[in-house]
């Protein structure tokens, strides 16, 4: 799925929407199965994003350019 580009925010929102729909319980079977499959994919996506995310840290220069940040003492932070 092309959803790896999806923002965590959107994925999370969709996931919660799907859970809500399933909780309402009046979804036809085929749709429920589709939703379930989608929900599982989204939850995996969210999970992977949370697990694998690496913080991007940049400094905003006065001219509006972002440069990778160097913070003293950051090296020994956990």
């Amino acid at each position: 799925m092309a959803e790896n580009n999806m923002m965590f925010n959107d994925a999370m929102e969709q996931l919660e929407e799907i859970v809500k729909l399933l909780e309402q319980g009046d979804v036809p079977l085929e749709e429920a199965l589709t939703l379930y499959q989608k929900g599982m994919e989204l939850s995996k996506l969210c999970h992977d994003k949370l697990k694998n995310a690496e913080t991007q840290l940049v400094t905003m220069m006065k001219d509006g350019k972002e440069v990778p940040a160097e913070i003293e003492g950051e090296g020994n932070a956990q």
Partner: protein
Amino acid sequence: MATDPYLSVAALTKYIKKKFDADPHLRDVYVKGELSNVKIHTSGHIYFTLKDQKARMPAVMFSAKAKSMKFRPESGMTVLIRGDISVYEASGQYQLYAQSMQPDGIGDYYLAFEQLKEKLSKEGLFNAARKQQLPEFPEKVAVITAQTGAAVRDIITTLRRRYPLARIVLFPTLVQGQGAVQSIVQSIQQANRTDSDVLIVGRGGGSIEDLWAFNEEAVARAIYDSNIPVISAVGHETDTTIADFVADLRAATPTAAAELAVPSRIELLERVMGQRQVMFRLMSNDLEQRRIRLTQLQNSYPMAYPDRLYRPFIERIERATDALQRETVLTARRSSDRLAMLSRQLENRKPSDRIRQAERDLASLGDRLDQRITQVFRQRDQQLKSAIRTLDALSPLKIMDRGYAIPFKEGGVVKSVDQLELGDRLSLSLKDGDIETVIEAINPKDKERD
């Protein structure tokens, strides 16, 4: 009316107290002086004397206000007090009732802070209704603080640990000293030109002078004008700045600001796993229920005995067919019966019979007419014969047969002797001829014997 010119002490004191209380200048005073005779009562009230070289006045600070003081007042300290003046009637003394107290030295700052706070509050910059909602999952967190130092380190560490998904954008900013206000304002404005989801504006702990930039109006307004939600994080927990009042959310420390800015990855992972479990459980339950329903349907009476579904209909059709046939036969029979009856009635009323009857009647009437006429003729015949016989009997000829004669004189019948005279000629008609006579004598009959 008694005109006693002497007032009671209480009345006079009450009057004096009223004068004090009515004076607007005495209702809210700022006064600077040296503390002496400081006594902290067990109740928490602080009694002291405020003095300078030329004057002194008794003062009190009640426990409710004293509790919020950040320093312990001691004799010999120069302090700045805000409060009001009133009269304690029992001792006849006017007193300073202190509402707040600050050690001198920061006095100017304190005043400026209070004044700005009041001004901005009146303008509505602190209104809860104006606070912006923080995004749940910020993708970009802007950090406006000094490039080095504990604050930025704490913020970065916390953001990384909690929510590595967020991109951190640092805005190196001068947060104290000359140019700090301008730098902070610029950074806030620059951050507003990015697509950041939340701003953390702050710095680490320091003296009131160090933190002062965050009590400046320009900074407060820049925060208020920010279209991106602002979390303030200035100094330590005990430090409260104007920036904190204006910010959409106040964090006690930079670390706390980072915690408020992003959700926890651990909690989110749990939430995602929780959602998975909920989905799985819902789906399993759903499928199980559908399965149960399917089994129920399969075992249901109509599904198990499909022929019984239409059996009643067959019975109905058959019954209806029978009824239809029966009804058809009955109707036909009724119709033919009626036809026969009508034919009979018609037959009975046929006109030929009536004609025949009329003919019979006519014949009978003809016979009766014949009979009647014959009878009438016979009657008339007999009447005629009888009349003829009577007539015959009465005929003068018959009488003449028996010897009678009819006298005529001059053509007329003579019925009396009076008609005659002697010598008259008299003709006599006899049965078989006439004779001529002459009257020779007349002998009338005795009239008397008549």
